[in-house]
């Protein structure tokens, strides 16, 4: 389950990245890109707490 959520998290980021390239190449409109980016954000923050370790870094 954790692996699936992790995959979903990174797929969301990849989707955001792909959408921006499509805007750059003229294949996607800016409003659609903004919706994809917002969806990617929601998916990232919705999935990442379930798999990312809550242990803080060395200094903290």
């Amino acid at each position: 389950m954790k692996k699936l959520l992790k995959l979903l998290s990174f797929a969301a980021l990849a989707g955001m990245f792909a959408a921006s390239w499509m805007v750059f190449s003229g294949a996607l409109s800016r409003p659609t890109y903004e919706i994809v980016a917002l969806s990617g954000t929601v998916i990232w923050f919705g999935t990442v707490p379930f798999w990312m370790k809550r242990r803080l870094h060395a200094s903290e």
Partner: protein
Amino acid sequence: MAKTSHSSLVSRLDALYEYDREPVTQKDLHGWKIFWATFAGEHIAGTEFVIGPLFVLHGCSATAVLLGLFIGNLLAVLSWAFVCAPVAVRTRLTIYWQIRRLGGPWLTVAYSAVYGVILCVLAGSMLRVSMTSLALPLQHGFGTADLPQWTWALLALGVGSVIAVLAVLGFEGMAIFSKMSAPWMVIVFFVSAIATLPLLGCASLSDFWRVANEQIWTGVTALDPSTGKHFAHYTIWHVIGFAWLCNMPQHFGMADLTILRYARKWQMGFCSAAGMYLGHYCAWIASGILCAAAIKQGILPSPGPIAYLGAGLTGAICVVVAGWNVASPTLYRAGLALQVATPNWSRWRVTLVVGAAMIVCACIPALLAHLDLLLTTNALLLLPLGAFIFIDLWLFPKLGLRSNYAEHTRSPISWPAGAAWLLSMVISVIAFSRGADPIFLVLPEWIVAVTLYVAFSALQQKLRPAPVPAAASV
């Protein structure tokens, strides 16, 4: 009476850092992975939305930015690897205890006070970054980007209060949230810049260099709204110098001893490349692109509006998150540093008072427009102490001088360290008042501080040699 209050002050400061008093043990050391992640996460923050645009506003050329940032960040990485990390793995102590050993307890009090004030102002600038995004609905409501000052004050009060309360109640929660949001923030910077390039007339990768020179880093300085004059022109040397000194307190200033003392090897200082090249190269370039596009569209080039232009609501959220992620822990650390100066106040009370100071700082509009000056001042203030640590550890034994002299003689303060710190800063202030660019004062200040410290220490140890050591010095 005075002596009692002095010793009480020092013992309270020692108690605050008691947990970190002993060198890190072998079992607590970390490998490469955690340092890559730590550096990558720490150097992508709200300030990246401000610094990238500054190079556009200061009229840098494309070559100056792309090459200058590459060289400046390389110098920063080398400074972490060859200056800070070797000291960290040799001593395994925090900067606080390292200064305590060479400079005595009173120097740590002075360091904590200066550091606390700096952190307070930096937290204020982070709050201001977040406010530029949260002001977007108000700007739509008022129908103008030029909001009245009272709305900024109200925003600062509202948002700053939340950040202060979070710093008191949930510092750990904020730190975990910061860790979780770091990869997403990197992507938002990238995608915003990529999607914004067509607004500047860049239709393909082969167009980029032309657009970079003609539309983004044009070499023309912008008008500073806070002074009504044009920003000073920045050359490649300014860019190199700024990229290097931006984190000077962390590497040359040795503040990152606190992190790198957990490193298995000094070579882990090279992990700083993750933070430098993702945060201070890619993110600064990305925000520069956003700034140029905003100017072309007639939008105010401040963090909130440029991020909104780049990625819509996602960009606006990113600015708020980037500001809060840093403001809250910065405020917590400022409270910790300044707690010593209060009459036994509890942590929450100190943090709330520091939070009030942060809110006042956030009401200053020029804070973001002159963030480069603020960071340079920060470097100039804290750099000498890092220089003393470096010299005390590596050069003193070669010169036949005793390292950690204050500890061996139980001195309350090392006058060579105090005098060299003060004098080197006074010389920098004089040079600045005579028109010297503060970016180019950092290296001369390091040299002056080191020269004075070595000369004063040699004089001190000649007049009053330290007692025969009971144990080997680290």
